[in-house]
């Protein structure tokens, strides 16, 4: 009788662990890609890129896209390499990689922000 009880307990524990692994696996699968580099121009979403993937892209703003901020994502960090704005503050900003960090170009109204859904 005692043996049967232990066996039933083991089955229950096994079933629960199996269920939890399934749920856990599903959660991992459907989890977002992790940290994103979100670019907004004058408050509107322009584009977003995964921080984990190396990328080089020109953010074009102003009339006919003549204003340029060159965004580089490399080794899990994002920075503005160069820009046509008058002050160049964005290009001298340190690379960002943590949730909530941002690089801002006031003249071009560009925000490069690290966002995580955590």
């Amino acid at each position, binding site marked *: 009788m005692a043996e049967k*009880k232990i066996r039933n307990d083991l089955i229950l*524990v096994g079933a629960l662990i199996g269920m939890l692994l399934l749920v856990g696996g599903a959660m991992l699968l459907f989890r977002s890609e992790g940290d994103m580099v979100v670019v907004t121009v004058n*408050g509107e979403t322009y584009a977003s890129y995964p921080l984990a993937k190396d990328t080089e892209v020109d953010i074009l703003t102003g009339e006919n896209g003549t204003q340029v901020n060159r965004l580089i994502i490399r080794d899990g960090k994002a920075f503005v390499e160069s820009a046509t704005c008058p002050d160049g503050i964005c290009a001298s900003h340190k690379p960002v990689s943590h949730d*909530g960090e941002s690089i801002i170009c006031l003249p071009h*109204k560009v925000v490069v922000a690290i966002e995580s*859904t*955590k």
Partner: protein
Amino acid sequence: MKKSITLFVALCLFFSALSMTACEQTESGVHKELEKFSAYSFDYFDTVTTISGYAESKEAFDAVANDALAQLGEYHRLFTIYHRFEGLENLCTINELVDGQHRTVSVDARIIDMLLYAKEMHALTDGHVNIAMGSVLSIWHEYRTIGMDDPVSAEIPPMEKLQEAAKHTDIDHLVIDEQNCTVTITDPQMKLDVGAVAKGYAVEMIAQALEAQGVTGYVLNVGGNVRTIGTKADGNPWTVGLENPLDEGEDYICYLGLAGQTLVTSGSYQRYYFVNGKQYHHIIHQDTLMPAEGFVSVSVLTKHSGMADALSTALFCMTLEQGRALAQSLPDTEVLWVLPDGTRHSTDGWSAYMIDP
């Protein structure tokens, strides 16, 4: 049987920790997942505004963010000294002369309240925050604007011109009639510049309005004027990194955990221009009429964002000893000073807010 239940509970806790989504117990007892959102605006106070917060949905977040931005827009139109708006009396129209005199202007109660607060800050800081310095500051503003546009022809203002303007900075010539909601400047050559107070004050008023609506789990950041509303959704304080104002050394001086407090930094690196290779920043000392020289940055952590804004400017113009004495006289107020050589000083309670990122 008891053991397996214990194990099950333990595993559940483990996974709920793994999933890392924040939950909120609603009135109906149902758990709803909260997600973090951010919104940006370049429309107000000549700077960038960031609003971040936890909400059940993008729509719920947008409702709060749009409310906050709408209020910020109203404060911006009321407090700006640079723009007039059709049919609106604001700081710009208070400064205007009609037939060589200032008018008595009927204004919105929010202007009265802000000006009264600015007078309080003037008394508190021994005159180091003086919104009646407009005539002096407008000269610097003009020279800085020209110097930034055309660095070759950049000049510093002539001292005689500054000294002449400084004769018209007595805040007692700002007459506020609370009952009738009117403002009069009784010295025709005096002008208001509310740059050291208005933005922080507006942020505080908006934060208080949101708090009164029950909003929590948000951060308002208007050009570096940071005000937290409650904690993060998981109950932990918001992590605010204080950027190193100097080029050398680490990216951040420290990280601070804020839950309902505000952090404002005044720095010589924020607005400046060069004349013959020398940097001239925007925080002007009331006695020398030149940019204050003691510090690279002064950060103030306290409860009221208007206080933090005013105090960071005032402490930037005071000596370390004067500033320390003032900070220690105020409740829940901590300060970090950074000197040009990188040396740092802080009030005793500052380190209690420092956290690991």
